[in-house]
């Protein structure tokens, strides 16, 4: 301050003049105002306190000196970080005198933390505070809907970001309902506007997920997304929110609060909307897997049925065998019956032949009778008168005897015919008898000696057949 500290000669008070306090203080003040320009002063903050008026009072000090400082509310409102005692700051302002107390004060216009920039510090401070309030709690992060049908978008209407988002979303899934709630994304009021937009989409209630974001920019450009009002609006939103601010490397407070952080607006669109092509493919694949699965199941069962069927073939064979044997036995039975019938027929013929005996005898009798009669007539010609009546009587008796013999033979034949009918095998079966044949060759069994224990027999009843095994045998 060397040269500037030299007061102009005309301003030097006369040694002999007596000044009032007010004059003294004013003189000092005016001198300072005239001679001292703005400074950047660095020091440590102590005794910082806000006044009800909105002004901020603090003391700036170093190892040897201290100076009272005031930051009027108009400047204090622009301060983005929270001032705390012990903080090293750089302050821009002017030095002046507070006339009421004659005290030198530093009037701060702007303040930056040392080391970090003000925004950086503000960011860290808000982040810590919101984290402590649970706004970043991973457990409150909601899953995004798998296939949202209605998507809310909060961004500037005229920026590239909205174009990118729309392009990507509609390319991925052409049929969607998008509701854009335009918001200023930088400059004064941007944070409030973004918060309001989030609230409006919640009031509207149609969106199932909201993308909040903007394209890249400087830290100052992105600042609205570091404001507490935006963080709180995201936290309050009933609809899940995807933040999409700036570029990959930019992290904002909004990113920490949001349910999902997308590195860019384009990425947000990809995160929020599934690709219809991929979904269709996944569906097709699942459908193919489904068909493969059922084909596998059916194939498996078919194989099993095949195994069971192979096992079923054995009884089928048995049945076939049995049927064949039944056929054979039937044929044997028929043959036996036929044989029996033939024998019976033969017998009937024989009987018939034998029956012919008496007839022939009668005929012969008649023949001999007629011969006798001739002899008798020849004989009678001579003693006819003598023997005539006797001969007549003998002849009549003879005729009667022959007739009687025929009657008797006829009656016997009828009886035989009846008996023959009763011994037909079918009649026999009707009466509870059975035909027993061997299973082996269908032979009718008439002699116990022709079978051995263990032989299989078939028993033909009037209705149906039985199969039996010989247990034992008695001659």
């Amino acid at each position: 301050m060397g040269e500037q500290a030299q007061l102009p000669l005309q301003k030097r008070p006369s040694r002999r003049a007596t000044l009032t306090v007010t004059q003294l203080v004013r003189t000092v003040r005016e001198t300072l105002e005239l001679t001292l320009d703005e400074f950047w002063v660095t020091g440590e903050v102590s005794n910082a306190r806000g006044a009800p008026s909105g002004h901020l009072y603090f003391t700036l000090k170093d190892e040897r000196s201290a100076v009272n400082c005031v930051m009027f509310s108009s400047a204090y409102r622009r301060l983005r970080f929270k001032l705390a005692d012990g903080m090293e700051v750089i302050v821009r302002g002017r030095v002046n005198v507070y006339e009421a107390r004659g005290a030198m004060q530093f009037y701060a216009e702007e303040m930056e933390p040392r080391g970090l920039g003000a925004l950086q510090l503000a960011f860290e401070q808000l982040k810590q505070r919101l984290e402590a309030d649970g706004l970043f709690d991973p457990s409150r992060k909601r899953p995004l809907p798998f296939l949202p049908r209605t998507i809310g978008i909060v961004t500037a209407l005229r920026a590239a970001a909205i174009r990118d988002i729309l392009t990507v979303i509609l390319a991925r899934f052409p049929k969607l309902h998008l509701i854009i709630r335009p918001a200023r994304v930088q400059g004064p009021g941007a944070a409030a506007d973004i918060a309001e937009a989030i609230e409006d989409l919640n009031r509207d209630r149609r969106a199932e997920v909201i993308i909040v974001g903007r394209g890249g920019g400087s830290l100052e450009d992105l600042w609205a997304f570091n404001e507490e009002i935006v963080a709180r609006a995201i936290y309050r939103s009933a609809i899940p929110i995807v933040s999409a601010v700036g570029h990959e490397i930019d992290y904002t407070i909004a990113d920490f609060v949001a349910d999902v952080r997308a590195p860019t607006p384009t990425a947000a669109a990809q995160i929020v909307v599934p690709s219809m092509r991929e979904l269709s493919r996944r569906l097709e694949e699942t459908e193919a897997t489904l068909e493969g699965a059922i084909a596998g199941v059916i194939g498996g069962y078919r194989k099993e049925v095949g195994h069971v069927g192979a096992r079923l073939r054995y009884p089928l064979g048995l049945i076939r065998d049995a049927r064949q044997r039944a056929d054979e036995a039937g044929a044997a039975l028929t043959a036996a019956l036929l044989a029996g019938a033939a024998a019976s027929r033969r017998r009937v013929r024989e009987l018939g032949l034998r029956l012919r005996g008496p007839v022939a005898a009668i005929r012969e009798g008649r023949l001999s009778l007629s011969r006798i009669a001739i002899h008798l007539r020849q004989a009678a010609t001579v003693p006819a008168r003598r023997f005539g009546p006797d001969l007549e009587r003998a002849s009549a008796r003879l005729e009667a005897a022959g007739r009687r013999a025929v009657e008797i033979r006829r009656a016997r034949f009828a009886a035989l015919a009846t008996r023959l009918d009763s011994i037909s095998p079918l009649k026999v079966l009707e009466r509870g008898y059975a035909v027993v044949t061997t299973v082996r060759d269908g032979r009718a069994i008439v002699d116990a000696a022709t079978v051995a224990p263990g032989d299989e027999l078939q028993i033909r009843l009037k209705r149906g057949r039985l199969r039996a095994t010989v247990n034992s045998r008695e001659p």
Partner: protein
Amino acid sequence: MEKSSKKFEEELQDLEAIVTRIDSGELSLEESIGAFERGVALVRSLNQKLDEVEKKVEVLMRDAQGELKTVPYEPAPATDESGAEDDELP
């Protein structure tokens, strides 16, 4: 809207569960075929759902009374990445 989208995801999960169950071989043939038929119905329903929504882009804004209203979106020429001219917007 919310409901139908949840249904899509659920149906897709159901479908995949059905495939897994059929694949597991734990089901009888009748159950497998029943599950398969349900699966086919799900595939059909899911495919329908993919085509369900009409494309619509709207802008949500407040009218003079502060009531929300939606108007169709008409793409405006973009200014710059920052959206710096957004002050003009309502």
